[in-house]
């Protein structure tokens, strides 16, 4: 492991620790009693107190933080207040929706954006570049939830090609499950692709201005060969940086998109858990999301080292 990566890893761990404190502290001040929430309007005070005791809500703050974080590290995320099942089980169930959704949209946005960006950069200033960049400009401006709505009404309600939402579960077969993820994935992917295409194009244009591109051209390599063999790899660093940053946006986007398509994913879980004051679920899922962001960015850093030998550090 190189010093560069060691440092990034250390930073990741510190970030995670700080984040855990922030998350815990934030949720401690959330108003609303989870116990009363579970029992409802007409429950007696006794019943609520009994439940608070059962849930460990009466312990001191620091103890609860330590037991939470301790459990978290050993893979025991605690038990959901509302569902009264282990959080880990919930997370596992929900990840089966969110993870494929995130990966599909990440994949979609990448396979759309990179060729478009490459094409636009190669045809800089031409009409096709203007059209591609105009479209991407529009893509960046469209709120994904609005786009999702348009998709639902076109493909689900009007054309009845795809389900309007919901998730049949992977048990119902791969195709039905995938079908349910197509529209949400597109709604998530397209705005991301728009940004990524722009970044790809401008990164490529930056690289194309470098001296070594002239060196490569002076070798006699045709323009396209130079673009693929010399420019692309150098342009990947900013592109990967944006991919890493976008991952966090993607996760945030899933919260909204999962709500639009009523997909039982992590995003909706955490959103519901916040409104239902299922604090333990919120804490765990947020931490998990933060950890995912950090890991993804660590992978991005790792990819830098793969792409750029200067960071490998002999």
């Amino acid at each position, binding site marked *: 492991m190189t010093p560069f990566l060691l440092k990034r890893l250390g930073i990741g761990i510190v970030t995670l620790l700080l984040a855990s404190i922030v998350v815990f502290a934030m949720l401690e001040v959330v*108003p*609303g*009693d*989870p116990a*009363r*929430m*579970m*029992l*409802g*309007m*007409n*429950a*007696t005070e*006794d*019943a609520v107190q*009994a*439940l608070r005791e059962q849930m460990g809500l009466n312990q001191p703050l620091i103890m609860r933080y330590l037991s939470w974080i301790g459990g978290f590290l050993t893979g025991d995320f605690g038990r959901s207040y*509302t*569902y*009264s*099942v282990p959080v880990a089980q*919930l997370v596992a*169930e*929900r990840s089966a929706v969110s993870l494929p959704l995130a990966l599909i949209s990440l994949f979609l946005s990448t396979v759309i954006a990179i060729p478009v960006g490459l094409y636009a950069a190669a045809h800089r200033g031409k009409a096709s570049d203007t059209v591609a960049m105009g479209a991407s400009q529009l893509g960046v401006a469209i709120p994904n939830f609005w786009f999702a*709505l348009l998709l*639902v*009404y076109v493909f*689900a*309600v009007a054309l*009845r090609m795809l*389900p*309007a*939402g*919901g*998730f049949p*579960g992977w048990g119902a077969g791969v195709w039905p499950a995938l079908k349910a993820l197509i529209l949400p994935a597109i709604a998530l992917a397209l705005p991301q692709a728009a940004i990524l295409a722009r970044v790809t194009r401008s990164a490529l244009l930056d690289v194309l201005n470098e001296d070594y591109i002239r060196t490569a051209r002076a070798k006699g390599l045709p323009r396209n060969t130079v673009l693929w063999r010399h420019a692309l790899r150098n342009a990947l660093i900013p592109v990967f940086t944006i991919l890493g940053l976008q991952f966090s946006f993607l996760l945030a986007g899933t919260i909204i998109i999962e*709500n*639009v*398509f*009523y*997909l*039982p*994913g992590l995003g*909706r*879980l955490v959103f*519901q858990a*916040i*409104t*239902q*004051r299922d604090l333990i679920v919120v804490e765990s899922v947020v931490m998990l999301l933060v950890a995912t962001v950090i890991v993804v960015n660590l992978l991005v850093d790792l990819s830098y080292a793969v792409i750029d030998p200067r960071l490998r550090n002999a």
Partner: protein
Amino acid sequence: MNGFKKLLAAGVLLLATSAAALAARTDLVLGVVLEPPHLDPTAGAAAAIDEVVYANVFEGLTRIDETGSVQPALAESWTISPDGKVYTFKLHTGVKFHDGSTFDAEDVKFSLDRARAADSTNAQKGLFAQIDTVEAVDPATVKVTLKQPQGAFLYNMGWGDAVIVAPESAATNKEKPVGTGPFKFENWARGSSITIVKNPDYWGTPVALDKAEFRVIPDPAAATAAVLSGDVQAFPFFPAPEARAQLEADPRFKVTIGTTEGETILSINNKKPPFDNIKVRQAIAYAIDRQAIIDGAMFGLGTPIGSHFAPHNPAYIDLTGTYPHNVEKAKELMKEAGLQDGIKVTLKLPPPPYARRGGEIIASQLREIGIECEIVPVEWADWLQQVFKDKNFDLTIVSHTEPNDIDIYSRKDYYFGYDNPAFDKVIEELNVTSDEAKRKELYGQAQKILADDAVVGFLFELARMNVWDAKLEGLWVNAPIQANDLTKVHWTE
């Protein structure tokens, strides 16, 4: 020739069988707005629990039917002692829980004792408050002795909170409910859907459906989309009344409007000045235009009410004329209360559309008489804490969905802060009266007192818009109790 006939016969037969195959559709996806937190109706108040398991998975001694009347369930029959204190239930025999264990009187004793125990987390402990002892006389007979006669006891035993559970599975019912009902719990994909399947060993009339899935769709827009696309074939208590006209126009669907027990009210904090002044409350009552609220917030769905009582109840009296919409009168009353310069108040709104949308309209109506409402949307958890428990509110909008719950106005420390000994007396009397005519009269008195006192702003009785596939039959139109009883549901054709 003969051969041709044979062929024809075979063809007819084929048609017939394929028609039979069509008619044999036995699955159903039913939309529900709220996902239950767990599936044990005896350990949580959430209506969403009953909406899945009531009558389907769990059964009580009695049950409430679509008309709201009490029917026998696990108790085949019962007798009541002349003093009205001892109920002797005769139980069905040969009943088995889904895990195979046998149902008998001991289970009933266990269930009732558990529900009323000191450490019980039953959300409706009040239902069992009058029970003195429960005795298993023999495996098929249970004797319940009350402390005092209670007119509603049989009705109470029909609540979801009073269903009979087995000691073996009581602890795990939250995740894996085990009851005696015609459906067995199969799977719960949390956040998504709950699936129940036909119980082949059911003691009573077998159900027509083999499999039913309750799909959770909290979002009105998504609900509309799901129904239109056919993903969901039935959506009782459909959350998007705005789609009514569109759905009614579509021959694929059947749209019905049923009643609920939900009195939607503008709750007023009676303890807090200036609302302790009846003039201010009356002014609010005059300022409210119920029809505009029903049209604007519920797209015309709902019946105006003048007091805290369901219009479909035989004891209902129409008091909507007590304070008709009259802005001038309202302004005058404000002036009399010395508030002609206007006041600023908060209006806390829980998440349902009736509250959020209705709140906007009410705020606009109250503005006309000088009451400036700051709208504060709150989550249910906050609402329960801030409004219901801490009574930290001026105005709020909420639907009280428990049936026959006019007695809440007599509860001390209830969040309205209403205290009227005359009203309390009526309720006390009601509690010990079982004569129907007398009860009706008492209910009428109670309604009048509340209406005259303008305790809260009485808005409308929540209507229940149901949407289902036109080929589906047997679903409840009304909801006298929170339930989606699927026992009679079947597909035609």
